[in-house]
């Protein structure tokens, strides 16, 4: 990015500008599973105010959402529903795993609990804790933002092309 000296013109790439817009308008899915969902609601409510990150638009429908916060224990009975919700979300989409249970099963190493959702979903950010406090969740969100900024959605398909070097003389 750079600013031209005359006229206040901002020069940047299309990719960066789109990523920047995406970053501040992530719409999460209203999707709570267990204890972590309570902390997620606290994050969205008055004190921590997730609207500062442009994320206050929680969507009940997966078709309007582009970020899934897996907040809580995923049981084997719930797993098909979780996968279905993920598949219903349009691309590009991000998955954030909140809490020990969804990360690795946590303290529930039992017959009914999935030992880590990352066996089934591509996870972008893990937030540890049982449950993670809202500040930890906000930190995870900033990490998602960093990841979104690095997303080469436009130039990725040209990455494999080797441009010929200029030959001297």
């Amino acid at each position: 990015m750079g600013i031209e000296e005359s006229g206040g013109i901002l020069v940047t790439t299309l990719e960066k500008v789109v990523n920047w817009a995406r970053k501040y308008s992530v719409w999460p899915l209203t999707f709570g599973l267990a204890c972590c969902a309570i902390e997620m609601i606290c994050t969205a409510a008055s004190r921590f105010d997730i609207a500062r990150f442009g994320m206050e638009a929680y969507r009940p429908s997966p078709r309007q959402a582009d970020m899934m916060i897996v907040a809580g224990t995923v049981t084997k009975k719930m797993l098909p529903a979780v996968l279905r919700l993920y598949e219903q979300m349009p691309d590009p989409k991000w998955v954030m795993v909140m809490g020990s249970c969804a990360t690795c099963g946590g303290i529930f190493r039992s017959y009914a609990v999935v030992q880590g959702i990352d066996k089934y979903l591509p996870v972008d950010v893990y937030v540890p804790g049982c449950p993670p406090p809202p500040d930890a969740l906000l930190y995870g969100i900033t990490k998602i933002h960093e990841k979104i900024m690095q997303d080469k959605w436009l130039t990725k398909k040209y990455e494999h092309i080797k441009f010929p070097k200029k030959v001297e003389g």
Partner: protein
Amino acid sequence: MRKEIIKLNVGPQHPSTHGVLRLLVELEGEVVVSCDPDIGYLHRGIEKLMENRTYHRSIPLTERVDYLAGAANSLGYVLAVERLLGISEIPERARYIRVIVAELTRIASHLFWLATHGHDLGAMTPLFYALRDREIIMDFFETWAGKRLFPNMFRVGGVARDFPDGLEQEIKKFALELPQRMRDYETLLTKNPIWINRTKGVGVLTKEEVLDYGLSGPMARGSGLNFDIRRVDPYLGYDEFEFVVPLGENGDTYDRYLIRLEEMRQSCNIILQAVDRLPKGDIMIEDYQVAFPPKDKVINGEYLIPHYLLVVKGFKAPKGEIFHHTEAPKGELGFYIVSDGSEHPYRVKIRTPSFVNLQVISKLAKGRLLSDLIALIGTIDIVLADVDR
């Protein structure tokens, strides 16, 4: 005229089901013909896990049973184990700390209920107000225990950590201020015509139905059944506190709403009494066969060895079986522990209030409108981890 039954699947991901509840509803137009709850989406096998742990190591598991009122659950468990071991008295300070934390948890749980119940029925503002006050309680827990939702500080024989300096005064200040702030919340809902239309006459239960369905907590008291375990089977010395058990008349959603609000005020009342009487002194019994020695003395061999044995091996409980119930925010929380004389419980059954209370929804929803179903889910005040364990 052609009549057709529509089958509707509500949940398991639905913003108004308070978690992962799934309801299979059959509709005729907008009238519910039948409603069949499908639960178990959060069944984590806590009872089975507890059979394989020592008594102390189960405490974090019990806190996660009803995650809106974590400390109330571990309190019930710890009291059950104490009764199994025959410990009848714990230090006074520990007892009052337990009462204060249990009542704070009740307020936190009811505030969250107010927030979500209001939100489900279209009132957005109570959510922000109620969660503001809940954050203060969470801050108390964080100061005391370092954790917000689950303090995990109750131990067999006392509490693990004393209140830090000044926390008592902060709690007292909060308990004095909350009833005043609740007047604001009431102006939003209590006389609001929309609120009254959505709640009055919805989900009416008679006393006989309450007994038949085994309901407890505000669900039972809403219909006028005077059943509060703090009163009828006192534990933790609740009989020495002055408080009123609010009772409803009509047994509808509106009455239960008023009861929960009044319970919050009464909890503030109990907290004020407990803070005033809070004595100085020990917070743990001195029987190091079952209770942890004080942390600052554990460097000494005399205390180190019992501490080590307690952590690694646990204690042996006498052979027998015990049922202990407490008044959790959502109703009667019972722990049935069968011991075979070893370090692990042979069987633990957690009788959770939400599991029993949820059952009545199929009866209440029949013949009502679909929009009333959301009010009913809110008034039963379920937490799905509490239902499924």
